[in-house]
């Protein structure tokens, strides 16, 4: 209801100051529209952000307060007890460590192999490169669910179920095409003369890769790592399918332990656990959000 109301009140009150200050009058029309769009943006941003703020506030509520109170109300008293219970119930530290290992491992493969494939496709070039590009394109369109049953069977037959690689392999494999694509479009910008000059100096393809391509790609590496980390850190489906033992559970699986563990869910402790597990990625995001936003924009707008 606030959205249409705002411009109306403005139209009524605006003329008075406009008489005394003529310059304002000229800007009145655009600012009317501007106010409306600001109100709409504010509402949408509230919808996007308030649930997360609410999550955090709830993690500081007492259990009694949560069960009886108005959900929008501010807590009557703040408590850190939920956090203590969250750490008692689960293995948050271990979950975070596992997520970290999986994210690092997958990112390492995605960056190194993505760069290598893009180097072969874009810089070295070969006869069937169009065909290979098409092959990699499949991985962008095809949903990950297709790989669950086959990988489960394959892992079972070579005893790879319930290991870090069982998560890292498909996560890296399905992210590889986009990474190759990003590196290819970056390699296009490296002038051919650079390579030709290096070739004349006697550098072979390996030295050129190590001395020219690799050092120049640092920015693209950061982009690829940031974008993929969001998805890998939060991966649920592969972890849920391939991991069974408590010691290997990543954050999404660890969080599930909080639900109905004792028949009744301890919501305030669960929300405390959620807040703890969100924090690492959120910090990275808030510190590096410029680079991340640029990466997301460039990654998709050219795809």
């Amino acid at each position, binding site marked *: 209801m606030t959205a249409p109301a705002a411009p109306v009140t403005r139209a009524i009150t605006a003329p008075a100051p406009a008489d005394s200050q003529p310059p304002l009058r000229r800007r009145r029309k655009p600012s009317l529209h*501007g106010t409306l769009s*600001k109100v*709409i*943006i504010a509402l*949408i*941003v509230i*919808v*996007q952000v308030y*649930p*997360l703020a609410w*999550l955090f506030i709830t993690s500081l509520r007492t259990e009694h307060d949560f069960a*009886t*109170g*108005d959900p*929008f109300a501010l807590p009557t008293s703040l408590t850190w007890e939920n956090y203590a219970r969250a750490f008692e119930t689960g293995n948050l530290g271990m979950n975070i460590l596992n997520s970290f290992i999986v994210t690092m491992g997958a990112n390492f493969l995605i960056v190194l*192999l993505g760069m*290598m*494939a893009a*180097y072969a*496709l874009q810089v*070295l070039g*070969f006869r069937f490169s169009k065909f290979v590009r098409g*092959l990699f394109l499949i991985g962008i369109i*095809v*949903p990950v*669910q*297709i*790989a*669950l049953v*086959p*990988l489960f*069977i394959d892992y079972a037959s070579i005893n790879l179920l319930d290991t870090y690689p069982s998560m890292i*392999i*498909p996560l*890296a*494999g*399905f992210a*590889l095409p986009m990474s190759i694509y990003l590196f290819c479009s970056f390699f296009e910008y490296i002038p051919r003369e650079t390579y*030709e000059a290096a*070739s004349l100096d006697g*550098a*072979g*393809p390996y030295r050129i*890769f190590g001395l020219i391509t690799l050092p120049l790609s640092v920015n693209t590496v950061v982009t690829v790592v940031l974008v993929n980390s*969001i998805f890998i850190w*939060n991966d*649920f*489906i592969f972890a849920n399918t391939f991991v069974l033992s408590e010691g290997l559970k990543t*954050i999404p699986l660890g*969080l599930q332990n909080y639900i109905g563990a004792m028949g009744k869910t301890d919501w305030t402790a*669960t*929300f405390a656990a959620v807040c703890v597990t*969100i924090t690492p*990625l959120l910090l990275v995001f808030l510190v590096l*959000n410029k680079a991340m*936003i640029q990466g*997301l*924009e460039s990654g*998709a*707008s050219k795809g």
Partner: protein
Amino acid sequence: MLPNRSRLSVLVFLLPPLLLYGVAVLFPIMQSLFLSFFSWNGISDMEFVGLANYVRMLTGDDIFWRSFFNALGYLAICLVLQLGGALLVASLLTSMRRGRELIKTLYLLPAVISTVAIAFLFVRIYSIEPVGLLNQLLHWIGLGALERPWLSDIHTVLAAVSAPEGWRFTGLYMLIIYAALLSVPQELEEAARLDGASRWQLFTKIRFPHIMPVWITTTIMATTYGLRGFDIPYLMTNGGPGQSSELLTTYMYKTAFTSTDFGYASTIAVFIVVECLVAVGLILFMLKRKADA
């Protein structure tokens, strides 16, 4: 092409990525295709059944069709929230002078949160006992009659599990569309404005046609992501109550790992892939026809 390259060096750079990609993506796709012609529970011998799985899926399985139409509903809600919301906010944002970076960051925030956390959050938002955010809000604005347990009401559960997915990624698409809108030439807009074009005309005649290629990309992205949506419905309702929020992906997952019917699950998985390919083809086809007309 690099002058001093050898055939060996191409292989050295290309084989390791192809190996990983083959093991993780290409080989499993073929295996699924293969398995879809068999009946197998993972323990006893595999039995070749020809097209029986496909016949069963397309003609004899009500749950399959239910899931298929649910998945289309889920997709529609996701597309409206993600692309509609993204286009609206991106357009409004271009007319703002300050605070653009802040709004971009805030709007993208939900994309950083894991699906498990989002599922927990929305379970509480929809809950009625103790009263959750949504029901409380409805009560306040005088729509108390609409209060309900959103996740156990069979009429609302599909929308309730779709909305979080739309909410989560709208920021991502907004960023992409916003970047495209910024690339619309200022002179073009200026000229149209001088000719007396309204804001709406400016948008439909100048801006939107200009961002068309990016719009196609985002539509394809959002559609393929929507068709593979799994985490949030699986975690929030596991397809229930009954089959009212069952999607093809959750149905396939349960067929594979609860009923351990690997053959039939692969058949459904193949169907999901075909569905994605058809959707991408349809989008490209429709847009091409529109462009030609």
